[in-house]
């Protein structure tokens, strides 16, 4: 039985010829009301997608060795990294600057222990003695070997001067106290500080 909404065609009328290769009529693309009761389905899909995207990109980069290609060009503020740094000093900083901590890194340590007694009664070589410095862009770090690398204080300027060194970072120290004047008190560093070796220091001309 025909639906009342569809007009019936007369049996005498010739049936219209079907067009060759009829093109599909574009369908409206409105989604039906959701039957899904779980409201978190879409969020779960998208969350999983982020994992999948990250995994696929990681797999592509790892498989092609893409990350390794750029590894040597990093900035150097990381354990094992070397970077160029600039520091300003006065000659007296060799005596003024000191730190206190019980921790040693590859033989490098502060001049004083945490209880502020000397670390090594015999005295340590400058290349093993950590001192606190600020870079010109205000990054605090502990470095050893600066004065040794500069050739001690012989030909150093009398006024404040600037030096550039290679800094090889070996670790990070959280529990250090710092002193900025020879007769001044030690104050605990609020935050962790990079620790490393300063080499090839030069006074820029």
């Amino acid at each position, binding site marked *: 039985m025909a639906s009342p909404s569809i007009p019936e065609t007369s049996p005498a009328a010739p049936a219209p010829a079907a067009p060759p290769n009829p*093109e*599909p*009529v*574009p*369908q*409206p*693309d*409105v*989604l039906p009301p959701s039957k899904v009761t779980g*409201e*978190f*389905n*879409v*969020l779960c*899909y*998208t969350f999983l*997608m*982020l994992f999948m*995207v*990250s995994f696929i*990109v*990681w797999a*592509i*980069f*790892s498989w092609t060795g*893409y*990350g390794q*290609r*750029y*590894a*040597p*060009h*990093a*900035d150097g*503020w*990381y*354990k094992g*990294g070397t970077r160029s740094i600039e520091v300003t000093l006065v000659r007296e900083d060799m005596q003024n600057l000191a730190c206190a901590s019980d921790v040693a890194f590859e033989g490098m340590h502060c001049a004083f222990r945490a209880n502020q007694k000397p670390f090594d009664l015999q005295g340590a070589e400058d290349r093993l003695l950590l001192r606190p410095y600020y870079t010109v862009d205000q990054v605090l770090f502990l470095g050893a070997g600066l004065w040794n690398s500069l050739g001690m204080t012989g030909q150093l300027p009398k006024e404040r001067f600037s030096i550039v060194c290679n800094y090889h970072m070996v670790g*990070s120290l*959280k529990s250090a106290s710092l002193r900025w004047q020879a007769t001044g008190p030690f104050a605990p560093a*609020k*935050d*962790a*500080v*990079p620790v490393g070796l300063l080499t090839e220091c030069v006074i820029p001309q």
Partner: protein
Amino acid sequence: MTPAKMVRGVVETGRAAWQDAVDRWGAQGRIQRITSCLLAFMIVGGVILRIQGVGYPPHNTFDEQFYGPTTHHILLGVPDLHDFHPPLGKLLGAIGLLLFGFNSVGWRFMYLCFGLQTIIVGFWLTREIFASRRAAWLAAAFIAADGFFIAHSRTAFIDIMLVCMILWSILAVITARTWRGIAVTGILIGLATSIKWSAAQTLVPAVLVVLLYRRVPWYTIFWFGLAPIVHFFIWMVGLRLMGHASDPAAILAVIRSSMTSLHDLGKFDNPLASAWYTWPVFYHPIVVKLSSSGTTSRYASSLGNLVFSFPAALLIVGLPLARGLTTWRVAWRRYWPAFFDASFTRAVLVLATGWAALQALFVVSMGKHSFFYHYLTPYAFAIIVLAGVVAKLERRWPRAVLAYVTLAVLVALYFVPVWGEFALTLQEANRRLIFLPWRP
């Protein structure tokens, strides 16, 4: 559930999705099929363009210095507060460093992933808000083939994470059916705000969705109160990882200090700054990555696809105005329903509110500290409106939409070299970055 059952479930889901795609392809007309192929080309091309050569240059460019090194300091426990923004962007960025080490691929990896994810979230949000798969595919293709999103996906720059997380928040509130969905939205807004504070403005469109769609009781909006709790928690984790004090007083002090610094930045001139009202016309897009080698340079310009940017801005401003006018004048009331149904109207109002709300901060309080990249999130809302309108138009005028999409592809192909960091001579670059404010 056994692993075998899970694998079988995934295979069956994939097979059903493929069958669904084949059925839909069969239901499309010839013109629509050509349009579909162009959309697929835009999506695939956009994905490839984002990934290729992302590690170049192997040093920080533009504002990457605030995110790559800072992220590294978080991992080392070395204190670093020289970036004023909340820590979540950098915490997420740290995943890249854990996978690849501290190098340009490592510090750009997660931003790239979020850049790709933005295409997916854009798809789902459009699908849910317009209840149209076609609009969703159009939105995904428009986002994929737009230089604004491409350049930011290739840069260690937190705005691409921000836009992704904000779209995700709106998706969550659109799909919410109980208080739990609203609570999840609150958490997502808290996460977005922990990338950049400007994301707090997402609360405006989110509240509008609750009130306008009425799928959940109005008082569930109090669950958005989870956002500041999440934000506070993320700060605590970030500060602790960086070796700072992380008690509530210290967190408040850091937040106050960072906000003061950001506010103070607004007092200084910056040659890259641009007023908010110039953003929709792409007056001063920023080249967010630039590197030179010999006589060639590589550019990642945040200039959008002009075929999308101007119509998107016109629509997101014009449609709510038109709606207002047709309500105001009795004689015009019949025009709006002739073109747009109630659900479309709601969607446009939500997206337009999001577009306006996410610029509001820069209109009222940021002084000179407003940059073109602050338009990235509002632009995503505008693109979604554009996709919704184009999908509607396609039902009546498929040929016109095919012509429009073809034009978009051609324009994209022309600008691809300055979006995807191809090696270009100055003349080749200037031929694309025609106006002086477009150049670095």
